[in-house]
């Protein structure tokens, strides 16, 4: 899928959770949201992007994607 779209979607999610001062909690929120609402092919693509480049991702998105990569849906 168009990676620019996925980057924007992920960063938008992070913008919401960024209000949380505990960044660990915030990253967990972003991860959980993506895990529970994104189709696997979208998750795979954004994780691949974060691992290969990731420059357009916000810090919180990056942190969340690290968590996402080590998670299965629960």
């Amino acid at each position, binding site marked *: *899928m*168009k990676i620019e779209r996925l980057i924007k979607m992920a960063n938008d999610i992070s913008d919401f959770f960024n209000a949380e001062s505990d960044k660990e909690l915030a990253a967990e929120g972003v991860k959980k949201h993506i895990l529970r609402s994104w189709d696997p092919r979208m998750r795979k693509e954004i994780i691949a992007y974060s691992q290969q480049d990731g420059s357009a991702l916000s810090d919180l998105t990056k942190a969340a994607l690290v968590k996402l990569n080590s998670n299965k849906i*629960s």
Partner: protein
Amino acid sequence: MSIIKEKDFGTPASTTNQLVTLEIDGFQVKAPAGTSIMRAAASIGIDIPKLCATDSIEPFGSCRLCVVQIEGGRGMPASCTTPVAEGLKVVTQNKRLADVRRGIMELYISDHPLDCLTCSANGDCELQDMAGAVGLREVRYNPQGKNHLHAAKDESNPYFSFDPSKCIVCSRCVRACEETQGTFALTIDGRGFDSKVSPSQNQSFISSECVSCGACIQACPTATLMEKSVIDHGQPEHAIITTCAYCGVGCSFRAEMKGEQVIRMVPNKDGKANHGHSCVKGRFAFGYATHKDRMLKPMIRASIKDKWQEVTWEEAINYAASELKRIQAKYGKDSIGGITSSRCTNEETYLVQKLIRAGFGNNNVDTCARVCHSPTGYGLKQTFGESSGTQDFDSVMKADVILVIGANPTDGHPVFGSQMKKRLRQGAKLIVVDPREIDLVRTPHVKADYHLKLRPSTNVALINALGHVVVTENLLDDAFINERCEIESFTKWKTFIAQERNSPEASEAITGVPASDIRAAARLYAKAGNAAIYYGLGVTEHSQGSTMVIGIANLAMATGNLGHDGAGVNPLRGQNNVQGSCDMGSFPHEYPGYRHVSDLETHKLFEAAWQAPLSPEPGLRIPNMFDAAMDKTFMGLYVEGEDIAQSDPDIQHVHAALRAMECVIVQDLFLNETAKFAHVFLPGSSFLEKNGTFTNAERRISPVRKVMSPKAGYQDWEVTQMLSNAMGYPMHYTHPSEIMDEIARLTPNFAGVSYQKIDQLGSIQWPCNDEAPEGTPIMHEHAFMRNNGKGLFMLTDYVATAERTTRKFPLILTTGRILSQYNVGAQTRRTENNVWHAEDRLEIHPHDAEDRGLKDNDWVGIKSRAGDTVLRALISERVQPGVVYTTFHFPESGANVITTDNSDWATNCPEYKVTAVQVTKVNQSSEWQEKYHAFSENQLDLLTQGMNDG
């Protein structure tokens, strides 16, 4: 099948519980205090003659036909305006009363055409009935005397006729327009013998303020105001109760029939959502169901460049299934999916999602709620634990303050809008949050106390500012918060919201709303007693739509405005079954009842019930489907009842995605815009042709009943079932009631729902289960529906939309809908409603128009970063400078050529309400419109060729 005539008790019911005992014609009667003698008599079967009284409006006491005598009392009081009292002894019939009544009737009839046998109301005329009831045998007055018998008819309204020669000036129509509808379009003009009913200032109905709700026709006791369909076809002979297929109010109607022909749709007095009221769409705009554009034959084609080929149902279904299977074999199991619609019944949407999950083997199912209220689902689920509004509609009658945010009830939800106006006329305060001056801001006898005219896209800054005032001015309901909410989340929110950046003063620069107004509005809301929030797509269709819903929930919890009458958080759903389609598991991440597909227990429950392996992974949302199509990973789509090629944003992208797919199956009434990109067309059935249920905005499950045979042979649920069987996943339902039984077995909030119970109660508000066997009008009364029963406060930082104005795109376009048309217009455009709105126009403020040298009706080009289109200008001060507005009911308007792919962070609900544009004067259609026209013409040619071959 129900009776044609409903019992008319003459005056409205009293709402008190205190009973008084009296005697009427020797019979003892108990009636609530405040009841009229007329109603009390009617309750024991004594029908006192009447003409100016009807139980939908307050008594008037003008015709004097209902006079009675009261023992010990003076004269002959009107029974409609005289309340019951303890110990009264009332006589309704004696010679003196009979003489008076006969005299009155004689006067009425002396100025009435005696054409009963050829009159359209013959058999349904109260004047005729009363003449019989009082025993009128002669009229002594000279028929050549002064009269109104030659008064000219007003035929200007497409749906009803006004014949003043038959008018008895009882004022029922005038009072219905005032009390029931709240438009005040009618009056009695002149005095004495010259008195006459007049729309506005002696105008025709069509040029008056009349909104064609039908309340006046409903109230008229004669043939003065009469549906043209009755004039043309005669009186109906049977009636079936069903539910309107338009907006989320879900009005109950009696389809009055002659055989299989609908003569008229009459609002059901016992309908709990509408209480006998209606709007122009539900009351009159049903002609689309029998429109010549209906597609009644299944069709297939290999490519959208090919002509259509009419085939049998079996061929069409087998072809569709084989294509879907071929695509799965070539591109993988997840390469196909489907879209349901809020225009479908609960049972239909349930079957579509079941087909996709169990038959297709993936969760690629979505619904049009994606583009309207998906943020409501998310925001209210997070905070309250359930994806639904909290109240019934009647709750508004207990509200002291009404806060309307991003909704236009008088246009979008007209029947509820009338109920809201009734409460406002009773004295409730009103706060409107809207960039545009909607009718509710200033309408007869209603004026908003505050109109917070914010800039589009700044909702969250505004709701935060309201919350800030509540917290910093200590307007919190501490007892509610402590008892009912998660304290840790509240403490965090309180700290967040109290920050200076959330103050009205800081927000003013963002919202454009004076801080003093925000402070005053917050105080009004918080101190009201009962304060209710009603909101619409002006909340959800933003990049922060879900954040705003959460902000609304925070505000209601902080002030304790939940769990009781007169309060609550109330999303006004756009289409009739938005709530229901979401309830039925139409989202790609949720099973019916909003349970996540990864939830192990639920997963096992559905796998066992459906006897199929199910995926625990969320599927694609609608916009993701389009992206995946462009990526060649999503190549087959089954669309039931939805027109994504018109309704979805950034339409050129949608069209490209549809072109990229190898099989698009459309099941619809018409060859809609999406069908022009389709390979299989399966004819749909209208709401008049099928059984099922709709669930309205107040969670009310109401019956949809077949009043005529499906024109193409099958009800929609049967078509889905056939497709499923052809796909190799067997379904063997014989009636939608069996589908509802399955829903009830698998969904805790529907556990007590059955067709039998719906028929018995008329309708049911879910949750309906062992704890609430007759349903739940108000939710969260004692605990929220989250696992721990506590409400959750969440932080709602304002994040500016990415859609910014620049010198190149200096205006913000926002979109909405109008009373007479409905969404993509597929239904209403095929009715006489076009009389009121035949094209979409661009509203622009006079200052912006002057800057561009624009006049009313000029053609204007509207250009955004996504595309451009051309509309005619409507110069209006309803919009503020810097903001332009249009509706989206006509495909050729291309409103969604302009809208962008920005969407809500949580749900991908499109940001329809905020598009930066430039507007310029032009003299020709846009390039897109030229291409659309050519494509559309070509597709209609391919259809005609196919039909000619067939």
